[in-house]
């Protein structure tokens, strides 16, 4: 099948599943590829010492975050709470690459004003919430977001992500139980990527499949291949519609694999090389590209145009972020409270030029 650069699908293309339109397939491709490419840029910046803290990749898991988040209805005000490896889900909700890069580089212009790291930020308007590091805590918080939907009789749905490791936390349990008892419109994505840091699944839980946990909460259970973008979309959409219709909580297991270490400093010494090779062959981006090629829903030329656009956008974003400066020191003590919004500097700081401060000991 020779690559075609025509804008229209081939007439003999099979029907697009899950009620998706062709434009949506392209948009999904943009988001999937953007997640991958953005993280590659971040890796470069990290190697150059420009990322201040750690870098957490989602290599090999991009489809699960993008496909699931894409199933939300942004016009209806659906909402999500991502975890560290769900960059893709935030891009779906409208987070901008420039925001992400600034955030990793701790720039004054970052969404948190340099206060928080990596993808720890949110936007109530766009519909995603700023996570904290403490695993599990976002589950009760999203239960509360969904409770607000119910109290106000708004037909909105919430989506919350947890890793296989995060399911061991008490807050995960309390949050899901709260949501199922209250029959809240919540969907919980359990990402089974094989590891929690260095700990394999069987040292995290005695269940064979994470989806077995649903029965313990009286939640609906579903699962899909997390590396199959459209399958992820479909299974999540089903759960979202059920939630919107008042059917309560669904817990979905997406099976995937973490192809990098926990963070860039972790060389994954504990992972057999063959296993990595196996999962590289199942790469979700390649797979989606192949699917588009094989079906002819989207032409290779269109795909290439998306890639080119992404590279341009990222060139611009990196340049813009690099140009920005670190936050002004004094901004560190603002906005802790709604009132008072400002705080006095410590008395021995007043009058000393913050720039002239000694660097930390060492």
């Amino acid at each position, binding site marked *: 099948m020779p690559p075609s650069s025509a804008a229209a699908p081939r007439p003999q293309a099979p029907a697009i599943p899950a009620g998706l339109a062709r434009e949506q397939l392209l948009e999904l491709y943009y988001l999937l590829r953007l997640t991958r490419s953005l993280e590659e840029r971040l890796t470069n910046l990290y190697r150059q010492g420009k990322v201040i803290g750690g870098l957490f990749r989602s290599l090999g898991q991009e489809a699960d975050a993008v496909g699931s988040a894409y199933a939300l209805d942004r016009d209806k005000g659906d909402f999500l709470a991502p975890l560290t490896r769900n960059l893709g889900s935030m891009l779906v909700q409208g987070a901008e690459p420039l925001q992400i890069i600034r955030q990793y580089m701790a720039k004054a212009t970052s969404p*948190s004003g340099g206060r*928080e790291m990596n993808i720890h930020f*949110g936007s109530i308007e766009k519909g995603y919430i700023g996570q*904290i590091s403490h695993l599990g805590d976002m589950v*009760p*918080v999203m239960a509360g977001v969904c*409770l607000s939907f119910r109290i106000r009789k708004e037909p909105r749905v919430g989506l919350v992500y947890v890793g296989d490791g995060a399911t061991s936390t008490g*807050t995960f349990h309390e949050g899901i139980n709260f949501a199922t008892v209250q029959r809240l419109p919540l969907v919980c994505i359990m990402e089974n990527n094989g590891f929690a840091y260095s700990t394999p699944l069987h040292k995290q839980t005695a269940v064979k499949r994470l989806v077995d946990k649903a029965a313990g909460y009286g939640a609906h259970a579903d699962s899909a291949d997390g590396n199959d973008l459209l399958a992820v979309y479909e299974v999540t959409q089903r759960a979202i519609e059920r939630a919107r219709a008042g059917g309560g909580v669904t817990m979905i297991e997406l099976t995937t694999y973490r192809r990098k270490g926990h963070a860039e400093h972790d060389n994954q010494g504990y992972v057999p090389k063959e296993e990595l090779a196996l999962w590289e062959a199942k790469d979700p981006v390649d797979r989606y590209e192949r699917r588009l090629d094989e079906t002819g829903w989207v032409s290779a030329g269109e795909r290439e145009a998306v890639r080119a656009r992404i590279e341009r956008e990222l060139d611009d974003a990196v340049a813009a972020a690099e140009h920005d400066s670190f936050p002004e020191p004094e901004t560190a003590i603002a906005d802790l*409270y709604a009132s008072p919004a400002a705080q006095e500097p410590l008395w021995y700081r007043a009058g000393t030029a913050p720039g002239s401060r000694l660097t930390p000991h060492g």
Partner: protein
Amino acid sequence: MAEITYLEALRAGLREEMLRDERVFILGEDVGKYGGAFKVTEGFYEEFGESRVIDTPISEAAIVGAAAGAAHMGLRPVAEMQFIDFISCAYDMLTNYVATARYRAGLPTPMVVRGPCGGYVRGGPFHSQNPEAAFLHTPGLKIVCPATARDAKGLIKAAIRDDDPVLYFEHKFLYRRIKEALPEDGDLLTPIGKARLAREGQDLSIVTYSAMVWKSLEAAEILEKEDGVSVEVLDLRTLLPMDDEAILATVKKTSKVMIVHEDTRTGGVAGEITARINEQAFEWLDGPVLRVTAADVPLPYAPTLEDYVLPQTADIVNVARKLAAY
């Protein structure tokens, strides 16, 4: 203007705010039909319905986390801890999630977490705690501790209207033991962050809050009568933010200060107050800042033990005499 108890004042304040603002709702264990373990929300389920008075599972972290999520979306949750001792189960959620939400992510988090604290009721180590010091150490939270029926009402109303997360520690010993005639005025508000001069005096100041205000007043009377020592009693009402101005004013007035709190001694709130006085009014001091507190043990159950561990009026008198003579 009928006299109402501290508990009734709290209930009235809650109810007025629920009537005033439909964004306000209540969640907690047994707060619905049952009206709460101490009946603070009695009648609310019937009046406001089950979507605004929500019985939850036994899940303090989820109660607090869900309150935060709802607060972000524009509601005004009031979460009840059945006993404040169980707030420890939500410590992570409060200190890491709730307290930091605005600072790190610009999230509005107007919510109240309230519950019965305090001893003198033979409740043993897990139904008598005073957790304020654990949270005083958490930037981003506010903490109020009403001592009077008026402030029980005024502070719950102010806490609900506040745009920041507020911990409201109500003292269960006071629930039905003190009464006050209060206007049914919907605008009885106690400003958060402002202390109250509970008694004027010249010779010595007692800085205190919550139930200890009453023991301090009792001691002040004994000292007046038996020693001719005139004692000023400052009721802090809010611990975070602390009313430095009021503390300094009384220090500068009497030059002798003692701090009384019911909580254990080491790491308690009195340390912070002492440090502030040292930094800001050292030259005004005519004597050491002295503490009357519980002894450093879990609060035991037997009356003889509980009475021994908790601060008593006689302790305050003892220490005040030492300080007056200094």
